[in-house]
């Protein structure tokens, strides 16, 4: 796990300088900023979007919106703000789509839940040995979580944000963010029950 409990209240001086340089016409400054935050931001977007192409589109849209509205958010942490824009964009996209799939949503006429299909489509523990494969298994299982829970899970586990920051991004209380994380972990626990021993071995 990465950066835990970071204090992020004001925009980084370096970010502010780069933004000012970009406003004056220095395109390289934007390149430096995008490069600086591409991993956590794109990693998050990729995990809550519908694939690579969609993620690229959202990633660019996040930056365009961020820079266009920069004056309004001068005092805030840039990465948190980028996550917040990404969150808003993804919520809009999900709302525009028709049904929201979750683990409980029956995926077939026979009423097989998405979680069951997902579990059935995954390779068994005998085929997975390393931590990387187990990580991929977690990723697949997390893909079936409802968007709010998936967001909390990845903002916490991948981007390393605190619950206070996650709550700000999702515009909810810390307790709600914590509860969403608990639901996510609980569902993953059920999904990965068979592989839990492997997970522990890989983690230890």
């Amino acid at each position, binding site marked *: 796990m990465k950066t835990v409990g970071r204090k992020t209240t004001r925009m980084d001086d370096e970010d502010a300088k780069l933004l000012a340089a970009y406003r004056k016409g220095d395109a390289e400054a934007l390149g430096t900023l995008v490069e600086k935050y*591409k991993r956590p931001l794109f990693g998050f977007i990729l995990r809550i979007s519908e694939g690579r192409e969609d993620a690229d589109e959202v990633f660019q849209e996040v930056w365009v919106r961020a820079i*266009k509205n920069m004056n309004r958010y001068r005092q805030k942490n840039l990465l948190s703000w980028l996550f917040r824009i990404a969150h808003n964009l993804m919520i809009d996209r999900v709302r525009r789509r028709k049904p929201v799939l979750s683990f409980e949503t029956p995926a077939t006429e026979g009423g097989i839940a998405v979680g069951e299909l997902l579990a059935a489509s995954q390779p068994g523990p005998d085929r997975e040995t390393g931590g990387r494969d187990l990580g991929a298994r977690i990723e697949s299982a997390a893909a079936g979580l409802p968007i709010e829970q998936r967001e909390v899970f990845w903002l916490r586990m991948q981007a390393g944000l605190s619950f206070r920051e996650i709550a700000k991004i999702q515009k909810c209380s810390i307790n709600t963010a914590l509860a969403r994380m*608990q639901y996510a972990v609980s569902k993953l626990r059920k999904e990965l029950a068979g592989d839990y021993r492997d997970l522990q071995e890989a983690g230890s």
Partner: protein
Amino acid sequence: MKPGKIEKMLLLEQTGELTAKQRRRLTRELAVSGNARRMRDELNTISKAIVENDTAPDPWAARRIDSRLRAEKTPARTVVRLLKPVFALAACLLLATGLWTFHGKQNPSVSDVVSVTAELNVWNDPLEEDMSELENLILAISGDPLDIMEI
């Protein structure tokens, strides 16, 4: 402590968001409860198993973002954006004028009514005269007023 509460505290412990009091409470709980220790191991295991995402965005992403931002700043668009309030004001004025004119026509003044009536009379009077002449002619031919009704 309830398992849900323990899990919340463990999650907050990972992010360093526990208060000193909560930390002491959790330490006590972990010392006496095997279930709490199992939950902590489980959370740590999941955290460690998360794969570092190596996927990077489109290598030209910064260029594309820059192009989009520059395109949106072109003079033509800026002029259109600046003129937007002017267009909106003009549309409002046009609408207000239209409504005012329409209401004006809905409630005509007395002089308007008189002039319209006079105009109608100019047309009606010769017509009435022609009709009575025709009536007299028919009476003269038939000699019986009842025949007129039949005609």
